């Protein structure tokens, strides 16, 4: 299955990035082979609408699932429209661990926008 994971650096040993819209890297992974490629995230430096921008990149990669630490309301709506299921990585420390837990069905699926640890109350708003 093709999934996307938000990470700090473009590799499998890296830390997971807790933010979806403003994640440093969008790691597109084939879970069976662990083949991966990194998509840079234009949302990381966007003044607003970061979640939507990142969701658009992810949707263009035709992935089936997205794993991150937090999905804001706009990111949630956009990913849901694209038919991508969302999962929270929880206490996973690195990308590899998050993929393993996802394959084992141990990650929590998200049914609505989240208010994760990185929440600042500014989801999706531009000044």
């Amino acid at each position, binding site marked *: 299955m093709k999934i996307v994971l938000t990470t700090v650096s473009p590799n499998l040993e890296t830390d997971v990035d807790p933010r979806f819209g403003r994640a440093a890297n969008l790691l597109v992974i084939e879970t069976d082979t662990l083949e991966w490629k990194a998509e840079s995230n234009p949302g990381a430096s966007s003044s*607003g*609408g970061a979640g939507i*921008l990142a969701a*658009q990149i992810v949707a263009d990669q035709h992935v089936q699932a997205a794993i991150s630490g937090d999905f804001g309301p*706009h990111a949630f*709506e956009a990913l849901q429209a*694209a038919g991508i299921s969302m999962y929270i990585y929880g206490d996973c420390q690195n990308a590899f661990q998050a993929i393993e837990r996802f394959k084992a069905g141990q990650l929590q699926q998200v049914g609505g926008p989240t208010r994760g640890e990185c929440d600042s109350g500014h989801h*999706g708003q531009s000044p």
Partner: protein
Amino acid sequence: MIITIASGKGGTGKTTIAASLALSLAEEQSSPPLFLDCDVEAPNAHLFLHPKLDERQDVGLLIPSVNETKCTYCGKCAEVCQYHAIAVLGQKTLVFPQLCHGCGSCTALCPEKAIKEIPDRMGVIERGPAMVGISFAHGVLDVGEPMAVPVIRQLIKWIVAQPGQVVIRDAPPGTSCTVVESMRGSDFLLLVTEPTPFGLHDLRLAAQVGRKMGIPAGVIINRENGFYPALDEFCTDHHLPVLLRIPFERVIAEGVAQGKTLVEIHPEYADRFLRMFTQIASLL
């Protein structure tokens, strides 16, 4: 003449001073001033000027609405949107109204003509006569709406001042887009500050905005309770005349807390405001 009262720091006394200036001019001039409360996120001037708000109008932006049967998901709309307010996700085109700035680019550039514009309400503007014949208007942004500028813009456009009528705009605090919009087109800025490091810090920012916009400005020092040389030095160095000093007095604080303006608490202030107005006119 359009005079905008701004401050940078919140709570320095913008509304107290704007309302007091309006009342002083209304008593004196043949045509009472037009008062615009531009702080649409937290309007409060009506508490001092007691308008009878008998006219109101919904305000907002025109936002895109996509006809799914015509849309081919080509993505042109998402590509041109600077605010990511429209996105194409697989076989769906989504609009995010709160991010839309209403520029119309998506509608104009859609090759299938699948987008039409529909009004999206963001708030309301209200107007009516206030104390001593003042023409009063304010805007109220709806709860949960993140963008105040369109409401301010439509408030300012709503009423055209009579020839010779003074316009007083009470700006929001800060130095962001809402303040720029309130200052735009003004002839003079009255920057209200207090003699504290915080007051000076934000006065510096507000004065910079005014200078960038090319609007002459003067300073009112409110709640003056001693000597704070840094503030006067700043005003001297930046050629900002100090037009009025209001002392820190318990009786003023008590009066304002009861919804009274300075000229109702201390009637002799009316003359001081009128002298200040004459001084401003001579500076232009």
